């Protein structure tokens, strides 16, 4: 059975102690944010968690174009919407609560830890909300946004087509202008999450399509809003629109999330934003959405960690190499074994590191929204890193979670293998992790002549300068500085080689993103260590928390971060080992 306790203490640490001094605080006092997190935790663990394994087992049902979600999901969605969780970080103008993005991401972490499949439904609505809000005409926004925010209607994002996922420039769905200003859309979309379900009376699809006069490729794509039911005069769902679900996919994980093949046959829609500028509309919401997908990795990593710790305390197998610990038992709990600790600490260091990084970027997202240009640069730089790193590490953690359980992780009973299957998708959708790496290296690094990069590098260098001789954490800072050095070397290598040969950049991309991500996470860890080093000796009820924080920081810097050196070597090997292999030889 899956169990989960929201890591509220760590969330408070990250929110208030690590990233506390921001504009968020004036508006929303810490006690308010804490009570929101606490209530969200209660809802997630009591309502969503019990449906996770059953939803996975049952999956979604498809019959005659209708999708039925697994038992309990519809009621849970109703309770979720009634409690207002979908409105958390939405604009008060449309019925939202306008809470900080950082809090939203922490709540999302809990939702994903308890039931990723469920979380996708409101997640997609929020994606649709963001795209519409940033580019829609006022009339469309005033009508649709309050319904998406309240959860009365749900949303989708329809990008992918059978022949194109990554390369959306090839997409074929057509939109033909009508005399009344609307459009008729025709085409097929696949893999559409929440494309059809029984949660809401209406579903609002945001669809990428091509106008008749569209230039070829990615610059000829426009965004449209296509409701499942056309609103009648009173704004209630009226006539059925020409959009239907042809099938749902059978897949590896997130089985309670309906992944739909959608057909558009002369479906009525309305243009969102400017003709041919659909991809720009998409990019506006992508930062937030990619951060959310990264958060999915974190949530599952945390769930896996908690499951693994519980089991490691209880499962007795083999004696401690330092001499028997549990004399009254036939063997020691496996938590005594160095190798099991390696697994547990790896998961923990990743989770707490991701949490710290996620809130860091989320706060910058809010600042960027308020017009802070430096924050916007930072978000742009970090978005592909958060998406790819968190989902890669989340998957790694779920995998370690299974390993800690041995054979009992591989079978269904404990729910550990579900985490692996569920975590796998996050590395693929919302832009594969390979594409994130290309975005980082090809777009984000050179952006504004490296200004974003300098904005990341400078504070890091300053921190190292200020704390490398610190009696308490100096050694950690020095270890971190070595990894940072590797990143700097890799960056100049990539900048130089990639400038002349894009294939060199492409060859380095994934390793470079990992290196950057590990260093960014390392920065979080040394900053957390600094706080913990100050507070641990103060004693009191929190001393254990800070001591554990310090230990985990040390584990991260001394046993994970040295990977930076290996990544630098890999990057410097260049494209030749990849590209010299004849295609026919594969």
């Amino acid at each position, binding site marked *: 059975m899956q169990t989960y306790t929201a890591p509220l203490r760590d969330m408070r640490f990250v929110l208030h102690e690590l990233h506390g001094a921001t504009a968020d605080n004036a508006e929303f*006092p810490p*006690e*308010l944010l804490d*009570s929101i997190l606490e209530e969200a935790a209660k809802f997630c663990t009591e309502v969503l968690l019990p449906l996770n394994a059953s939803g996975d087992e049952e999956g979604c049902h498809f019959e005659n174009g209708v999708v039925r979600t697994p038992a309990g999901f519809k009621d849970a969605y109703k309770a979720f919407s009634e*409690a207002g969780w979908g409105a958390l970080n939405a604009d008060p103008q449309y019925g939202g*609560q306008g809470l900080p993005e950082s809090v939203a991401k922490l709540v999302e972490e809990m939702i994903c830890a308890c039931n990723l499949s469920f979380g996708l439904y409101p997640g997609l609505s929020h994606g649709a909300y963001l795209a519409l809000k940033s580019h829609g005409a006022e009339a469309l926004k005033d009508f649709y946004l309050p319904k998406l925010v309240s959860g009365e209607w749900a949303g989708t994002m329809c990008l992918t087509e059978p022949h194109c996922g990554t390369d959306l420039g090839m997409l074929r769905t057509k939109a033909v202008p009508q005399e009344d200003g609307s459009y008729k859309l025709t085409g097929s979309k696949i893999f559409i999450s929440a494309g059809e379900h029984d949660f809401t009376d209406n579903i609002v699809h945001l669809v990428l399509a091509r106008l008749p006069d569209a230039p070829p490729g990615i610059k000829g794509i426009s965004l449209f809003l296509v409701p499942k039911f056309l609103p009648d005069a009173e704004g209630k769902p009226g006539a059925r629109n020409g959009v239907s679900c042809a099938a749902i996919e059978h897949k590896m994980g997130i089985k309670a999330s309906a992944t739909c093949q959608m057909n558009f046959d002369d479906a009525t829609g309305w243009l969102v934003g400017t003709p041919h500028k659909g991809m720009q509309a998409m990019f506006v919401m992508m930062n937030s959405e990619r951060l959310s997908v990264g958060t999915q990795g974190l949530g599952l990593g945390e769930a896996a960690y908690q499951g693994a710790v519980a089991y490691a305390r209880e499962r007795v197998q083999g004696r401690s190499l330092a001499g028997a610990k549990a004399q009254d038992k036939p063997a020691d709990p496996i938590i005594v074994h160095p190798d099991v600790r390696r697994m547990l600490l790896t998961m923990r260091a990743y989770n707490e590191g991701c949490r710290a990084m996620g809130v860091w970027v989320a706060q910058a997202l809010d600042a960027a929204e308020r017009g802070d240009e430096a924050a916007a640069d930072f978000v742009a730089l970090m978005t592909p890193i958060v998406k790819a790193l968190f989902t890669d590490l989340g998957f790694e953690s779920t995998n370690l979670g299974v390993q800690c359980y041995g054979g009992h992780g591989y079978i269904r009973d404990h729910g550990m293998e579900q985490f692996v299957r569920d975590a796998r998708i996050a590395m693929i959708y919302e832009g594969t992790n390979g594409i994130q790496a290309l975005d980082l290296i090809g777009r984000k690094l050179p952006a504004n002549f490296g200004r974003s990069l300098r904005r990341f590098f400078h504070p890091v260098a300053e921190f190292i300068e200020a704390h490398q001789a610190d009696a308490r954490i100096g050694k950690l800072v020095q270890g971190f500085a070595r990894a940072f050095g590797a990143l700097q070397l890799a960056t100049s290598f990539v900048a130089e080689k990639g400038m002349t040969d894009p294939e060199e950049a492409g060859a380095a991309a994934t390793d470079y993103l990992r290196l950057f991500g590990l260093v960014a996470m390392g920065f979080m860890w040394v900053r957390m260590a600094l706080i913990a080093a100050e507070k641990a000796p103060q004693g*009191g*009820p929190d001393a254990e928390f800070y001591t554990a924080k310090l230990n985990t920081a040390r584990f991260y810097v001394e046993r994970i971060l040295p990977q930076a050196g290996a990544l630098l070597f890999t990057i410097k090997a260049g494209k030749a080992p990849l590209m010299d292999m004849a295609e026919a030889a594969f």
Partner: protein
Amino acid sequence: MKLLVAVKRVVDYNVKVRVKSDKTGVETAGVKMSMNPFDEIAVEEAVRLKEKGVASEIVAVSIGVSQAQETIRTALAMGADRGVLVETDVAVEPLAVAKVLKALAEKEGAQIVVLGKQAIDDDMNATGQMLAALLGWPQGTFASKVEIADGTATVTREIDGGLETVALALPAVITADLRLNEPRYASLPNIMKARKKSIDMLKPEDLGVDVTPRLTTLSVSEPPVRKAGIKVPDVATLIEKLRNEAKVI
């Protein structure tokens, strides 16, 4: 009609409590605290009575440390209108709490005081009864159903072996049992609104109540560890053991 509802801050029901090493009590430092679950049911009932139009105002009261304000906030987020914290660092006992509640019920002019039937930390199951006695009001304890009409509270009580229904002339004291209702999840807008609702801060002295404990705790210890069971070869041995060793038949 004004309702008073009492809420206590206790160790969260999910926490595995540990006895302090000096055996003076259980460890509460660094332990997650939340509202006593029976009090949540009491708050829920009060809110339902307000939604039905029976109650006009709900005042959530806690007696305890300053952090009990958070417990009151939880009640406010569920739908109580305002809060009163009677602040004291003393580990209050049922009689003291009953006296404080009596003073407040009179001060506020409450018609009904709703409490949990007991708190899960000390399992006293006494405050409601004492309060009714001190006020001279009728009591409906262990309530599993409450209906209010024409100045009468009809309370179905869970008693050994069944249900008992009593009619109480208001004002009255009601204590909530597990099956009275299922407390709601506080909605996000209500959590935000709760921050803006007022909590009056009082001291026991302000109400003329002396909360000095009257009981002395001699020692707190873990319950004895259950011994492993044994297998018996046949029914005859089982009966023999039940009769002579366990002495239950």
